[in-house]
């Protein structure tokens, strides 16, 4: 011991500091950061100076000047008197809406088709295979244009339509459905809905506890349905139907009133979902196939029915394989939503390119695009990583 403590410091002081791994790694990291910061500063400074030399305005001040253009789909109030910044916020919200809607439908499609590809039924299996092989191999832009110009644009126009009792119209202006206008007492039904959900969760927890304690399973489905659906309807009837339906009516040019879902949204939504759904189907298939046959057999041996075996044994294990690539597909869908530009769905890139051209601030707008997509993608990643950790097999 004493020999070692004496010789160690001597060796360090005698040789170069660079041989000390801690010092060396700190030196390398610090110099890398300095280089990176310096390089970034050099780029920014150089670009700013050259823009000034070419008489091109720069800076983010334009975000506060009047936009002057209208946007077709505005989830929050917007007029052409608002600023470029507000226009871009509308773009971000529209991107989030189309991504969320696309992810939901693509996931449903993907799971149905993925399980369908493993079905014992020849017809279902072949249909699923054909779907996957076709849509996986077509660029998403073509699928969008197909729906927009090939399907929705050739529908008949809104003029001279025969009225129907449901007030639902599918025209080349989109899908028009009646709007529900709630009266003053409608909040009671909403409150009943929330109460119903909370009560259903409480009962579900108690049932689970009961099952763990005694092994007896209590039926939940009908109780939950009665609480979540039945209770609000009951309250709605008791309070005297505080809502009216607003039906679309034809004016000189369009159908007015009701809720309009524009063909740009429908085309983009269907195309993104169908395209990404094909990839998710393959991921789901791979996930299920990764669970060894023995697991299924063991489940059967325990007396689980086929549906139960799938739900309780196979799918939880398949999820470990499914979730990481599924995350990539969700990110792809979010980024592909920028193709909405081609059909005029006002998402971030479409609105941004209008802002870019009206204001001339290309570099700034591109920076905003990159920052927003990076933020959205990282948020989705963080959520999916958390979900993945939660679904990971707890090994004992």
């Amino acid at each position, binding site marked *: 011991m004493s020999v070692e403590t004496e010789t160690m410091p001597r060796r360090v002081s005698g040789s170069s500091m660079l041989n000390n791994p801690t010092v060396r790694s700190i030196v390398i990291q610090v110099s890398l950061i300095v280089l990176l910061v310096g390089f970034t500063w050099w780029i920014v400074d150089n670009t700013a100076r050259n823009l000034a*030399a070419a008489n091109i305005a720069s800076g983010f001040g334009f975000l506060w000047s009047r936009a002057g253009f209208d946007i077709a789909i505005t989830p929050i109030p917007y007029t052409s008197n608002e600023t470029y910044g507000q226009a871009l916020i509308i773009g971000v919200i529209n991107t989030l809406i189309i991504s969320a809607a696309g992810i939901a439908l693509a996931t449903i499609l993907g799971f149905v088709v993925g399980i369908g590809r493993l079905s014992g039924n020849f017809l279902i299996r072949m249909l699923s295979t054909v779907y996957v092989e076709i849509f996986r191999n077509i660029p998403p832009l073509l699928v969008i244009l197909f729906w927009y110009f090939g399907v929705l644009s050739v529908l008949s126009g809104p003029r001279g339509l025969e009225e129907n009792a449901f007030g639902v119209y599918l025209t080349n202006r989109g899908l028009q459905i009646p709007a529900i206008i709630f009266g003053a007492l409608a909040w009671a039904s909403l409150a009943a809905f929330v109460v119903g959900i909370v009560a259903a969760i409480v009962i579900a927890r108690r049932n689970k506890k009961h099952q763990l304690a005694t092994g007896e399973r209590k039926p939940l489905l009908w109780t939950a349905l009665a609480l979540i659906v039945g209770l609000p309807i009951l309250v709605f009837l008791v309070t005297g139907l505080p809502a009216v339906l607003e039906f679309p009516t034809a004016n*000189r040019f*369009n159908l007015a009133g009701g809720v309009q879902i524009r063909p740009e949204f429908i085309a983009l939504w269907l195309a993104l979902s169908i395209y990404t759904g094909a990839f998710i189907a393959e991921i789901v298939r791979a996930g299920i196939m990764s669970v060894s046959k023995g697991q299924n057999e063991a489940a059967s041996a325990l007396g689980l029915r086929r549906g139960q075996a799938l739900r309780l044994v196979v799918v939880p294990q398949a999820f470990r394989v499914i979730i990481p690539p599924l995350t990539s597909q969700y990110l792809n869908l979010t980024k592909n939503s920028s193709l909405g530009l081609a059909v005029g769905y006002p998402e971030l890139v479409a609105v941004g390119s209008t802002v870019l051209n009206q204001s*001339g601030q290309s570099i700034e707008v591109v920076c905003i695009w990159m920052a927003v997509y990076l933020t959205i993608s990282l948020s989705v990643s963080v959520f999916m990583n958390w979900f993945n950790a939660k679904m990971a097999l707890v090994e004992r």
Partner: protein
Amino acid sequence: MNSKLLTALLGMTIAGLAGGAASAQTLDTVKERGQLRCGVNTGLPGFASQNDQGAWQGLDVDYCKAVAAAIFGDASKVQYSPLSAVQRFPALQNSEIDMLARNTTWTMDRDTTLGLAFAGVNYYDGQGFMVKKDLGVNSALELSGATVCVQSGTTTELNLADYFRTNKMDYNPVVIEAQSDVNSAYDSGRCDVLTTDASGLAASRLEMASPENHVILPEIISKEPLGPAVRQGDDQWFNIVKWTHYALLDAEELGVTQENVEEMKSSDNPEIRRLLGEDKDFGASIGLSKDWAVNIIKAVGNYGEIFERNIGVNTPLEIQRGQNALWTKGGLQYGMPIR
């Protein structure tokens, strides 16, 4: 189209890095390259479009040819870059093109904050509306509640918003990036109204399945002076494009045509002799040869000839000279004197 835009923007950033060296001496660069790079519309009949042999033609295209002829004495030495509305300014700013002749409206904002310099107005235009005849609409003021197709990133888009707001009318905008997609959306019935510059409407109507079923409304809601633009910071190059435009106008005013330009050289008229470089070498002052204007007129004719050949009353567009007649005939086109 999206990736093309991003490439253009990336290119702009890199051009920004490379330094401002590209700004001056455009003429030398063009001469060295042996070709003029000219940004034109992706397809607007009468202004810039490709015929069935793939050759570019149109009023804007003739301006590219005129500048090439002034420099090289050869109108074919042009490389055309078809650009969308969104792509056009970055393409000029990052030196992908030497000049932009793409029915672009001259506005103060573009002239001052984008680093552009407009060299003149080769077509005085204004924004109009086109609707289907069977709607029975006679005035733009009847359009409240209509769905309107418009190209994104244009002054048209801004005028549209202002016009409907100031007249307290509602509308549904359908905003699409490429004019051809805007036209097909209108033609398929996605919109009730198509709006763009009046000349563009006349051109777009030709692309409709049945042009006779569409009517252009009488209201002109804006001033759209369209003209060629160059980058700021190279005065010589700016002068070349500007004086090419004036030479075309002066030639029309003096009666110098593609056909008679050779015999006009021996004219007694001092104005004609100055234009054609017989008395004094004006070409030298802009870095060109003495017969620069002769080359222009030989290649494309004078302004009137360009107009009539591409968009005039004997073409499918059937556009009258109107505001684009010479000042001597009650129009706005006025060529500055060459002396």
